């Protein structure tokens, strides 16, 4: 997918709860996973990471939002695969742990390696943002329209207090909704799915704006640049953005990996079901879900 989409998507990364801020920088990061860009048969995969730092993107934070975005540039279809942060997986060079520890283990690169090992999908780019970056991006893009399935009041934790139905969320509301889990029966899985919903809502917004005026993409690029650090070239970013504007939201599926709830020691975790392998394979082959 193109940068624009990614920008939007990237921006959408959802940070989570419970860990104190460690730096003052509020900059999402963008980078390559491999030195060479080799989309397989026109398929591009981008890992979107939302860290739990209140500001900045320190590697010492936890990756509490992890979404693998695939784009098939031939069929112009795409998919978002959501990973609950409590997924108990093998992290290369670190051992078995919750997937969100991958960031502490070796930064965004290690999270990407972990997801690559898990899914067998070669990831082309990663992008990361934190609380402030995400909130600022949504704010500067004038909010995001979401259909909230369930009214909830999570004043004690995430701060998400929303009625059900279609509404425009401001930056702080989108962040709170992306973090909320205790008020939903699905807990971490529901949260991960909601994060995917926000990514798609941002893509819809990008699509709507650029349908009216294609030059609107330039604002998305500007906003992302203001709140992000890019390790990919401006050319790549522009072309990714163009690609994103050409993918119709209805052609983007999003799926949360199937899991079962369990525990390891005192820690509550989720185990990814064997059935996820079929999803990985389909995603790898099609670049979409």
């Amino acid at each position, binding site marked *: 997918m193109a940068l624009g989409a990614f920008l939007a998507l990237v921006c959408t990364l959802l940070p989570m709860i419970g860990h104190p801020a460690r730096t003052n920088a509020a900059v999402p990061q963008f980078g390559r996973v491999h030195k060479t860009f080799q989309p397989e048969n026109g398929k591009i995969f981008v890992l979107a990471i939302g860290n739990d730092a209140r500001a900045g993107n320190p590697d010492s934070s936890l990756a509490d939002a992890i979404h693998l975005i695939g784009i098939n540039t031939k069929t112009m279809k795409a998919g978002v695969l959501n990973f609950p942060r409590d997924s108990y997986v093998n992290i290369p060079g670190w051992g078995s742990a919750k997937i969100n520890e991958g960031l502490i283990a070796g930064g965004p690169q290690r999270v990407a390696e972990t997801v690559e090992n898990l899914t067998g999908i070669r990831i082309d780019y990663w992008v990361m943002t934190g609380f402030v970056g995400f909130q600022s991006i949504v704010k500067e893009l004038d909010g995001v329209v979401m259909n909230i399935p369930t009214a909830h009041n999570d004043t004690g934790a995430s701060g998400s207090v929303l009625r059900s139905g279609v509404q425009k969320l401001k930056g702080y509301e989108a962040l709170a909704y992306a973090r909320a889990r205790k008020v939903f029966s699905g807990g971490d899985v529901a949260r991960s799915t909601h994060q995917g919903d926000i990514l798609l809502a941002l893509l819809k917004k990008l699509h709507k704006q650029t349908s009216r005026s*294609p*030059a*609107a993409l*330039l*604002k998305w690029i*500007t906003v992302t640049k203001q709140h992000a650090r890019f390790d990919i070239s*401006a050319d790549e970013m*522009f*072309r990714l953005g*163009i690609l994103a504007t050409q993918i119709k939201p209805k052609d983007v599926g999003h799926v949360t990996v199937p899991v079962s709830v369990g525990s390891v020691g005192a820690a509550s975790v989720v185990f990814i079901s064997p059935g996820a392998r079929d999803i990985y394979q389909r995603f790898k082959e099609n670049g979409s879900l």
Partner: protein
Amino acid sequence: MSLVAPVQRRPWIAVAAGLTLLIAVVTTLVLVDLPGRHILSGRDDAPAVQEAVPQAPWTIKAYPAGVTAKVTKAQEKVLAKRRPEVIALVKRVYDSLFLHPGRLDGTLEENFTQAAATALKRSGAGVAEAGAAATTLRTARIGLQASGGARLAIASVTVRAARPDADAAPLRHKATLWMQRANGGWKVVAFDVDQGPIPELGGQNAGEGKGDGKRKGKRK
């Protein structure tokens, strides 16, 4: 002497007359025959073609885009330099598509990335030969990136064209060009085009604009 002298000057007079005649013939060929030759051969880069088929004037607006704050004076200065460049690029591309298709290959080579050029040719946008359409509307809105040295631009172009062939419906053409500045020049890196006949309002063909003859392409 008076009789001899003319005889002695006669070769010079003949040479001068010959040269004059030659110059006159060459001049006549250049001024008169060239346009006709182009028309007959189907080439479209002759002024006569443009004169024969009146074209609509361009309405182009190039504005700063991607702005989250007021455009600074420094940015405006850069924009002022870039604005004529992107306008010229858009005009050049559309002259090649609708007025001088014979120049299209050269324009694509110079102003498009290879992938975008290949895809545009495949899309069938524009007209196949010069004089096949007379534009009745030509508008472009170009968003020019205000920040970052104004290296990115996105143009939305609308063209409507009548066709001299009585059986051919007028054309409408809508396109988006994504342009990027590199190495001192601009390149179209991607485009999105939708071209087809204008449906006859209230006629039997009303609402058929999305059907026959519509050419659509989205390419990078």
